């Protein structure tokens, strides 16, 4: 009889442990994951620092100092500064997203992901935290570029247009994060930087973000997500001079990239870890 009571109480204990987390605690778990992901990234100097400093430095160097008179030399008028601004801004959101693959690959290699899959971590928390982190780092880098552009005084955009570009680009970090997650879910930590660069560098130079392309490469800009993000930002901000494709098309391509890369990454992380 006694043992029956003990069994029953143990049984009730077990049922209790299986009860799902209340919503508040569930949301808190996601929030903590994101918070510590962000903290960890900001404390990792080799990750956060270049992604925050490099875009503003490059913008100031190539967008303001060296090409300060591009409005007179290019034949594109004062609007060309807006294009440069948006191009360098797009670069700012590409980097943290793509190179998040390195962090993910490191976590896979170090067994951390396997541990989290063993723990009752809420589903998708790792990925959501990484997406939010990359948007956060992008937002910081982007804000610096915006401030630099406003102070340099080269751009002729209204404040609404600047805000639109800022917002579109921060959200636009998501497809690049999906690419990064795909890299991180497939390759080892030591190979991830190489793969990241293999995608980042050609995309940077060949998307027509800020470098005039030779004619035979112009057809090919459409294969790079960075081109579409730039087009989406410019299109939604109403910068007609530099809107070459409908924003809806650019958006659709970015959604496609997110779904395909993110989908494969999530599937692989869930199955293989």
């Amino acid at each position: 009889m006694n043992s029956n009571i003990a069994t029953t109480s143990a049984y009730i204990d077990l049922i209790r442990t299986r009860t799902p987390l209340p919503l508040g605690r569930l949301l808190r778990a996601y929030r903590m994951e994101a918070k510590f992901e962000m903290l960890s990234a900001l404390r990792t100097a080799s990750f956060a620092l270049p992604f925050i400093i490099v875009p503003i430095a490059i913008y100031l160097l190539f967008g303001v100092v060296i090409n300060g008179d591009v409005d007179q030399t290019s034949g594109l008028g004062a609007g060309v500064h807006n294009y440069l601004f948006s191009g360098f801004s797009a670069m700012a959101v590409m980097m943290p997203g793509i190179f998040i693959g390195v962090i993910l690959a490191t976590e896979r290699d170090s067994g951390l992901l396997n541990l989290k899959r063993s723990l009752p971590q809420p589903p998708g928390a790792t990925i959501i935290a990484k997406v939010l982190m990359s948007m956060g780092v992008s937002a910081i880098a982007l804000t610096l570029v915006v401030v630099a552009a406003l102070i340099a005084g080269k751009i002729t955009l209204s404040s609404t247009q600047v805000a639109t570009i800022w917002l579109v680009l921060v959200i636009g970090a998501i497809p690049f994060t999906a690419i990064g997650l795909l890299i991180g879910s497939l390759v080892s930590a030591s190979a991830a930087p190489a793969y990241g660069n293999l995608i980042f560098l050609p995309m940077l130079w060949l998307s027509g973000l800020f470098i005039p392309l030779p004619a035979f490469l112009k057809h090919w800009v459409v294969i790079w997500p960075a081109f579409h993000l730039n087009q989406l930002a410019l299109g939604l901000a109403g910068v007609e001079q530099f809107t070459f494709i409908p924003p809806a098309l650019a958006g659709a391509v970015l959604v496609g990239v997110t779904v395909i890369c993110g989908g494969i990454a999530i599937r692989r992380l869930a199955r293989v870890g």
Partner: protein
Amino acid sequence: MNSSHRLHALDAARGFALLLGIVLHATMSFFTIIPAQDVSQSTTLAVTFYVIHLFRMSLFFLIAGFFAHLAFHRRGLRAFIKDRAQRIVVPMTAGWLLLAPPTIAAVIWGMSKSFPDGLPQGIDAATSAPQGFPLVHLWFLYYLCLFYALTLAWRVGVVALFDRSGKLCAHVDTLVTFALTHRLAPVLLAAPTFLILQSDAAWPVWFGIHTPDTGFLPQLPALVAFGTAFVFGWLLNRQAALLGVLERQWSFHLAMAIGLTAVCLVIVGPTPSATTPTIVPGGEVMRFLYAGSYALATWHWVFGLIGAALRFCAKESAVRRYVADGSYWMYLAHMPIVFGLQAAMMQVPLHWTLKFPLIVLITLVILLSSYHYLVRPSFIGELLNGRKYPRHRQTTTGTVLADATNPARNDSGPIVVAQLSDVSKRYGTSTALDHVSLAVQPGELLAVLGPNGAGKTTAIGLWLGTHEPDQGIVRLMGASPRDVHSRLGVGVMLQEVHLAPELSAREHIELTASYYRDPLSIDDAIALAGIAPIAHQRYGRLSGGQKRQVQFAAAICGRPQLLFLDEPTVGLDIAARETMWRTIRRLRDQGCAIVLTTHYLEEAETLSDRVVVMAKGRVIAQGSVTEMRALVARKRVSCASVIAVDDIKSWTGVVDAIRENDRVHVTTVDAETLVRRLLATDQGLSHLEVKQASLADAFTELTREAA
């Protein structure tokens, strides 16, 4: 190379020929008007088409003939006919009914988009539109049936009636061997095609063998050209050793093929003539030269590609095998997709260098996913490839959820919090777990012992849902471990995990605690694990032992009902280990079940209620610590003695004897008899010592027996 390797290579080559067909048809809108005329026209794609078209079907029919002979002789006439009916005739008929209407619709759509006002002047509508009965791309199956019928008729009629002695066949074999080894085969095989092309006034010169897709009446050029290939394939299988000759000659044939193709293209031009399709520029001599080069190039391509496949694709590869299996379905189904995409995209202002790869890519994605999800696991795959591959292995894995509302109750048995029932797990060829059954009850501390590679960590991975079993049932808290709710009551400390180095110990515990419903306070977890002094330090700066303590704190912070500790005390100093042991005992006393793997036997001896010994993926013993010891009720007798160990080994009851300098160590099942005899034999014996075998001895004994 053995014969099955050669078959893999030929299978790969056949798949290659079929998949090239998808590329071939995808080029068409970029230089012809069928199925649509793209806004971006391309000479490069025209040349691509030309080259592929030159050899593709001959390559296919040769391999088809090869496999036909193989199957005919393996299965016999009746089974062969039945098999061909199932895998060729049924797909042809069903495929035509399903595929011809959308394919023809795509062509009509594309052409009406290209020429809204009717076909332009100078283009003969009669040669470009389907006429008679449109076989579409399935004509190749129809011709395959014709070739089967003709060859079987010849085989069963002529050969069986008039060549009983086999003399004729032997002569043919000699001829084939001679032609191949002397590199004359392309010339001999090209001759019939050359004659047919040369004498055909309606020969569409640029397109080579005119595709016979417009009716059931066999067309002579196709019948001769592809029939030669089929028959030669059939003969080649009679002497499969000749494949070795082709393998050695691959580079010669490919070089010849490229040279002859260049000659052909120079003569006829890189794109087809829309106005004079049957005229070779340059007159009769050029026509003669062109027909010869064309027929010869075909055969050099065929031999070069087969040789290259034998040379480079003979090793069995899972990917190649998959693609080769899938190619039949993909080729059957591709036509409406390719033509539909060409028609849909013809006016999109993209350069052909983008549009063409995009069409091929979209087509391949659709075809591969349809193959993977719809065909391979279903009766269609069985019909086309002779077998089906179930998408999910047919096992009762942990995903078989017992009802989640009645979790841990195991019918009428005791409550179990974690269970493996007859579980097996393999990695490649090595077996990590072999029919293992283990159950953990609430409040018990189970120690899992075993040498490296015994399967301990795999067992934990299965319990936690990070691995899936190949066979058997895994339950955690009464349900699948893949369900996150099953893990809400579980704490985990794994081996070789590196937590984020930039976060502090405290932050790691805070993060892990957030996963649980009712965790300990962070301070309590820190105190229990004894890590207060290092709680604010960055994890990356801690020593190995300190890191293990932080991981332990994270494992217990959720007030688990079940705790997995995989080698928890490795690298700890004595004080830290004592603290951890104390906490483990306390948790157990509070009703937490603990699964502990360890190399330290004294740890198991000190802590555990029950011990499981594993070796080579199997449970070789389980019971309480005392039972384990009793299982090996042996004693160790040591002494300083001059008696030779070989003599001692022959005494009754002695299991083993070794000498270490002047001391002798003897393992025995009967210590008293042994001691008496030792003392009687050696008067000078000293330093006598008798010990109960420890758990370590028992363990070593058991695992040695298992190995």
